[in-house]
């Protein structure tokens, strides 16, 4: 949408709506994106803050912008594009997702080694066990079962808790707080309360790990800080734990439920997957592309004037890089709305791009690969227990997803 169109009121109806917009179907971009994609760089008004910010939709434009040193991920900028009323902690207690430059590199490194491809590959046998245990649990129940709660949330929660060194009895606690932090309907007070409660728990956990270090990310991060000689506080640790916890379960859980629903809604593709187990690797990336659950989760601020295609994003302006639009770029993904498992590749922007590329991307891929290999092998008659479009969705949430996934077999 051009600025002149806004000023002349030519797009009054669209302009009355505030961003984020609703998807007509979980696997389609919001209808408003059609016009925004024509413009590549547009302006929208955000829900909550009422800020005018820029959206960028082109695949190549986003890749370029996310490696441009003139953009910042710091939440401290006044115009940082929050599309909900954010408590002050959302600006200051971010850990490395909201850091730039060397501070980002140094902090991310405290966690990075746990998530490299080689380390992640070693987790395969344990993740297979976790997935099978949760399929057993589902099968022990009488259908219909809410697969999102019993399986999709529980599997990644178990994995990330084991990596971080958090005991199993805290799963429900973190699921509840993750929903408050990332959900679309939480108030600023609810988000703030979730941070305070999680921090209090993680604070206790840090004291425990200081006394009794274990083979977990938190213990290793503390040892890394100690050996690097860098100054750090417990606050750095609990912000990192909260970031990895939120990034490590809500996202993968949403992708499991949406991807499973997508396969069930595309039976020809599901049959191909059942017939050819090797198809699961490309299928994972194609299903990540189709759902792009982090569509609104790649925010930035311009540190300088940035000109793109004749438009100038001014220094200090907020920017959202809309991965759902980029992942439908027909020049990169022909017939972009079609689900074609065999064409899946890593080039989509579902994990972002640039130095903030999802640290858990390989872990997520492995979890999803195991889930879709085991799930349809163990429960070949799995089906939705409710028409797909009647399942309530997390519109406006930081991470898009479904509130439930009723299934039967």
């Amino acid at each position, binding site marked *: 949408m051009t600025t002149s169109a806004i000023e002349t009121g030519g797009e009054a109806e669209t302009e009355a709506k505030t961003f984020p917009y609703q998807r007509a179907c979980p696997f389609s971009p919001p209808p408003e994106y059609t016009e925004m994609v024509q413009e590549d760089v547009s302006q929208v008004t955000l829900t909550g803050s009422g800020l005018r910010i820029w959206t960028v939709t082109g695949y190549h434009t986003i*890749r370029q912008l*996310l*490696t441009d*040193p003139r953009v910042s991920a710091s939440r401290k900028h006044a115009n940082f594009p929050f599309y909900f009323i954010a408590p002050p902690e959302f600006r200051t207690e971010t850990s490395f997702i909201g850091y730039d430059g060397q501070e980002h590199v140094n902090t*991310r*490194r405290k966690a*990075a*080694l746990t*998530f*490299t*491809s*080689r*380390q992640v590959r070693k987790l395969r046998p344990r993740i297979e066990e976790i997935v099978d245990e949760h399929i057993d649990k589902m099968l022990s129940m009488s259908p219909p079962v809410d697969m999102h709660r019993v399986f999709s949330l529980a599997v990644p929660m178990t994995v990330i808790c084991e990596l971080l060194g958090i005991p199993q009895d805290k799963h429900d606690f973190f699921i509840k707080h993750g929903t408050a932090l990332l959900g679309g309907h939480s108030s600023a007070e609810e988000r703030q309360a979730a941070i305070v409660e999680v921090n209090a728990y993680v604070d206790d956990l840090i004291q425990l790990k200081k006394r009794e270090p274990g083979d977990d990310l938190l213990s290793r991060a503390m040892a890394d800080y100690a050996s690097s000689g860098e100054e750090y506080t417990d606050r750095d640790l609990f912000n990192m734990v909260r970031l990895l916890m939120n990034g490590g379960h809500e996202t993968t859980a949403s992708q499991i439920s949406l991807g499973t629903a997508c396969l069930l809604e595309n039976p020809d593709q599901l049959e191909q997957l059942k017939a050819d187990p090797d198809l699961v690797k490309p299928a994972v990336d194609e299903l990540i592309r189709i759902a792009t659950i982090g569509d609104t989760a790649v925010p930035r601020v311009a540190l300088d004037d940035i000109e793109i295609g004749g438009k100038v994003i001014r220094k200090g302006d907020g920017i959202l890089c809309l991965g759902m639009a980029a992942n439908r770029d027909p020049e990169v993904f022909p017939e972009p709305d079609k689900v074609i498992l065999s064409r899946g590749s*890593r*080039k989509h922007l579902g*994990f*972002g*791009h*640039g*130095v*903030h*590329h999802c*640290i858990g*991307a*390989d872990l997520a891929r492995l979890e999803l690969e195991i889930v879709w290999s085991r799930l349809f092998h163990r429960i070949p008659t799995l089906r939705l227990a409710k028409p797909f479009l009647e399942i309530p969705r997390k519109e406006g949430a930081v991470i898009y997803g479904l509130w439930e996934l009723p299934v039967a077999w």
Partner: protein
Amino acid sequence: MAKITYKHPNGTDTVVDVPSPNTVMRGAKINNIDGIEAQCGGSAQCGTCHVYVDEANTLPLPPMHESEDDVLYGTACPRRPNSRLSCQLPVTDEIDGLVVHLPEAQS
């Protein structure tokens, strides 16, 4: 600013001036040099910006962090003692004249 030579497997060289702040990976990307994929965009995660630093190199390069070391075990072409991820090599005046060899494949 540093002059960097990217040596291709077919024997040709591309020599470019890369301004700071950048990395050797970004130097290749902004000059459209083939042979560096950098799928993850520079977060030392994917191993597709693998280079072999010229064996005669005497320019000071930063020490390798543990996670770069780990990622280099998973590159498409075999790791050698002079393997680095080019996204982890910042461009400074001190590396003016750096020569890196591009591997046959990145993924």
